[in-house]
């Protein structure tokens, strides 16, 4: 009971400290709970939908001459690791789709309504259906609604081999497989009549087989997918793409992973700041109340009683702050979930999860409890009589810094620097806090710079260009010559996708006619791209996982063909989770029986329009052009989510930094002014004006902040890319070369310093109204 009374008294005496800590704990708890919900509930939500919709464990898309061989009997003859299967005939096309303000290029699987809605495995759920639309309609994946901004009733253009089919959007579908372009392919559903029309009018190459597998317990999805495609390609003229559910969900939720990591960093930074503030406030309390502690001990309070009062005080604050923080997190979460849903396309509703609430509460309470125990250790060593005799002497002036007798600085500046040295603990705390805040700020600026201001497309994709054309293989020679001859077109190069295998692992390879023509000079970050037909460059992540080095030999298969290549370099991009390779056409030919459809990238000279050139090529070759793309528009669409996230992160981190530095400076200044009250009274008595003292007080905090901003900016400049690499490595980017925006960093640094100065100045203003007599009298 007596401990509770002491705790209440401490809280009453340090109201502003209590409020400051409460707010910091609220912020830390809020972010921690958001992180837990993102990493658990948001991902779980995808698996729950998958289970509810009986989603396949592995989805196989097969095309090629022998695709019709695929039936249940054939598949069971090559593997018996599955317990259920459903095989469907569908149409598939690589095409552009309007997405937000741009376009995306993706594989579209066209299903007829009858088959799609009666699927046994991988069911679809219809959403926002407008029953008044009865013909010529289409259902699109929910991602195209929440991310791509398509609405029910809008017209949707489906481009299939130079023909454009227009449908009215009747509704959207929630489907885990084939639901997001980030996972490689999307499906659309149209009525059977419309489906049959496309099937009749289109070439046979549109026809594909889809097999959905439910695997036996304990069978690895990735391994099954790899084994299956290897076997299919080995014995047949079948090109197969297998998508394990785990990778589909990983791809559909990667934005949530990035956001989760960012929130986790902010949460950890704020928790560190809370601990620093706890240490600071407990230490100050002991120094300021040494006589009280002595008096309490002398009347029989044990160190345990006094410590218990601190524990009660801070645990109470933590409990209240945590409850507020958890509440706040559920206010913020719908917006965050909406943002992540624009990428995942999987509907998600968040309701309070008691488990994560308890984990958040317990974590924060435990951290605070252990810290208070640690920081109050010295109470045990205080003897009552020493404490009563004005306690422990905290002054330890080994050196008279900035002796006025010799100082060449102006008087007030000299005194401000003196104050800084006497206030070294608070300044160290300020230094550390400012360091972390600036570091977080720089990270957010880097994201802003490389996603919003000047997107780092060299990392987003293997190759970039202005336009691209996918043409029939019979055009291979003509089209290159024709494109090169078009006025305004430059640097036509073949960059054709060709999935190959190493052992049972798929490598998404890019086949180049000439590696020198590649515009993306950053894609190969170590070694070089292949120059000869026996050379290959592979993803750094793949090399690291499977212990390949530059100069090693690697065996690559495609179907029943295999060839050995020497690894000449490592490549990287955010695509394909670090399972990529580069071959020259002459090298890839060793793996191919016949020519394949090639994709040509080209750039345009100033003043020429990609769409016009694409049209010209289509007019020249007609149906033999499979698809064309305006890459700039595609990049805009692909980057839209990144841009939104980077903008939100900048706003979030800057706001949190502002609130935190405001709180910290408020708490430090309050403690500091309290401590220096007597000194300020003396100075005022001797003739210093309020302005002099306010200046001294405000400026005494600035060296640590300025130094921290400078050092943190320099450290961030060198460390930011390696730090972010720890996150990007999992996506395949091993050596990050994000531009560090020095101009924005300087603006942020100056802004941080100016805001800090204004805050300290503002907080010091209350000294103005205090008469020296009162300052001394209250001492």
């Amino acid at each position: 009971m007596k401990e509770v009374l002491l705790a209440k008294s401490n809280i009453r005496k340090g109201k502003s400290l209590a409020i400051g800590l409460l707010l910091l704990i609220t912020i830390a708890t809020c972010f921690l709970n958001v992180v837990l919900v993102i990493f658990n509930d948001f991902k779980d939500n995808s698996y729950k939908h998958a289970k509810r919709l009986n989603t396949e464990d592995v989805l196989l898309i097969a095309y090629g001459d022998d695709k019709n061989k695929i039936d249940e009997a054939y598949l069971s003859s090559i593997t018996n690791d599955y317990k259920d299967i459903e095989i469907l005939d569908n149409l598939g096309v690589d095409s552009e789709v309007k997405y937000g303000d741009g376009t995306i290029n993706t594989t579209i699987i066209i299903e007829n309504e009858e088959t799609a809605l009666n699927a046994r495995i991988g069911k679809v759920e219809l959403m926002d259906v407008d029953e008044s639309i009865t013909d010529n309609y289409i259902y699109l994946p929910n991602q195209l609604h929440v991310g791509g901004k398509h609405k029910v009733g809008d017209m949707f253009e489906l481009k299939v081999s130079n023909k454009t089919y227009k449908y009215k959007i009747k509704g959207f579908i929630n489907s885990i497989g084939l639901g997001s372009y980030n996972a490689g392919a999307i499906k659309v559903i149209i009525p059977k009549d419309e489906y049959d029309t496309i099937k009749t009018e289109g070439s046979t190459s549109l026809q594909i087989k889809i097999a959905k597998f439910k695997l036996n317990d304990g069978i690895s999805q990735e391994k099954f997918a790899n084994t299956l495609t290897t076997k299919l390609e080995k014995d047949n003229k079948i090109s197969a793409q297998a998508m394990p559910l785990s990778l589909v969900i990983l791809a559909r939720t990667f934005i949530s992973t990035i956001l989760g990591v960012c929130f986790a960093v902010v949460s950890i930074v704020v928790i560190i700041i809370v601990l620093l503030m706890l240490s600071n406030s407990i230490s100050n309390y002991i120094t300021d109340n040494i006589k009280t502690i002595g008096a309490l001990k002398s009347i029989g309070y044990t160190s345990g009683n006094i410590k218990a009062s601190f524990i009660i005080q801070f645990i109470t604050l933590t409990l209240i702050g945590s409850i507020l923080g958890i509440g706040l997190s559920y206010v913020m979460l719908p917006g965050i979930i909406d943002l992540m849903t624009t990428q995942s396309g999987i509907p998600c509703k968040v309701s309070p999860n008691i488990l994560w609430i308890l984990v958040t509460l317990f974590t924060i309470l435990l951290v605070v409890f252990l810290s208070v125990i640690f920081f109050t250790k010295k109470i045990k060593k205080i003897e009552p009589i020493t404490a009563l005799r004005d306690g422990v002497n905290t002054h330890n002036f080994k050196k008279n810094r900035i002796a006025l007798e010799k100082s060449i600085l102006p008087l007030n500046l000299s005194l401000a620097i003196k104050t800084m040295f006497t206030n070294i603990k608070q300044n160290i705390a300020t230094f550390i806090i400012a360091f972390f805040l600036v570091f977080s700020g720089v990270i957010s600026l880097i994201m802003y710079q490389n996603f919003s201001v000047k997107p780092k497309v060299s990392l987003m994709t293997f190759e970039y260009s202005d336009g691209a054309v996918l043409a029939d293989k019979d055009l291979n020679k003509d089209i290159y010559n024709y494109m090169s001859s078009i006025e305004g077109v430059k640097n036509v190069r073949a960059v054709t996708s060709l999935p190959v295998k190493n052992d049972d692992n798929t490598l998404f390879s890019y086949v180049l006619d000439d590696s020198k023509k590649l515009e993306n000079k950053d894609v190969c970050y170590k070694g070089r791209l292949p120059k000869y037909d026996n050379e290959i460059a592979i993803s750094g992540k793949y090399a690291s996982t499977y212990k390949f080095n530059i100069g090693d030999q690697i065996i690559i298969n495609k179907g029943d063909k295999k060839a050995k290549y020497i690894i000449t370099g490592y490549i990287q991009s955010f695509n394909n989770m670090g399972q990529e390779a580069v071959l020259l056409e002459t090298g890839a030919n060793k793996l191919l029986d016949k020519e394949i459809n090639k994709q040509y990238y080209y750039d345009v000279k100033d003043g020429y329009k990609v769409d016009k050139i694409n049209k010209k090529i289509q007019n020249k070759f007609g149906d033999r052009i499979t698809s064309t793309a305006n890459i700039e528009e595609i990049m805009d669409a692909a980057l839209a989510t990144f841009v939104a996230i980077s903008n939100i992160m900048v706003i979030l981190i800057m706001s949190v930094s502002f609130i935190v530095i405001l709180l910290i400076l408020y708490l430090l200044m309050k403690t500091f002014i309290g401590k220096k009250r007597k000194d300020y009274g003396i100075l005022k008595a001797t003739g210093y004006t309020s302005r002099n003292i306010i200046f001294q007080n405000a400026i005494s905090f600035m060296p640590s902040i300025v130094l921290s901003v400078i050092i943190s900016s320099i450290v961030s400049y060198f460390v930011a890319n390696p730090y972010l690499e720890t996150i990007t490595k999992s996506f395949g980017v091993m050596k990050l070369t994000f531009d560090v925006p020095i101009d924005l960093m300087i603006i942020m640094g100056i802004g941080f310093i100016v805001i800090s100065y204004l805050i300290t100045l503002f907080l010091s203003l209350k000294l103005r109204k205090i008469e020296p007599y009162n300052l001394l009298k209250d001492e």
Partner: protein
Amino acid sequence: MEKNKIIETKKLCKTFSNYGNMQHILKNIDLEIYEGDFTVIMGPSGAGKSTLLYALSGMDTPTLGNIYFNGTDITKLNQDKLALFRRKNCGFVFQQIYLVDSMSVMDNILSSGLLVNKNKKELVPKAYDLLKKVDIKKEYAKKFPTQISGGEAQRVGIARALINSPKVVFADEPTGALNSKTGTAVLDCFTSFNEAGQSIVMVTHDMKSARRGNRILYIRDGEIVGECNLGKYVSGDPERHKKLADFLVRMGW
């Protein structure tokens, strides 16, 4: 010879509100302080001695009335102007000494001196000279207040009060926190500076300290109720002591 008035108060009042109860600490005080005097303000605890001292020196603002310092009504000055006024005209010596602990002895003196005189070539020798006059060794200049005794610290306080050659030194119970021996040393400093022409206003309720003054004012319940002129201080003069004692007895001390 008529003395110059350096401070004059007219109807000086100071009232505090304590949870709604008005406490009149100073009541319509009309007072004159003269140049070169060692004026001592005495009175019982709570009489308003320190409040009067801090009002006279511009450290605290009165509720009503005027204070003319060298002809300037300082009650009309704002806080910053009061600070400028204090730095040029007043020196302070406090009972609790009030040196800035984080500054060395020399810095404590210079922090005050540099406000008025930026010329260190003049100021630093003057500071050392003052330290010598208050009997502080030169090597103590680099020490911190916590490294010297209370008596030494108080004498440093006197040196600080005098660095700007103020018109008046205000001292609030300067020997209150000191033992008899160190207290005497401090009083000796005051006497010697007064003898050199320095005006001093000191609050005390210690007879031994009061004896140093040439003019004793007695304050009770916020009003000056008596005045005693002791004349020039002569060390060990029994008559002086008797005169002061009689005065205080009359005042009901």
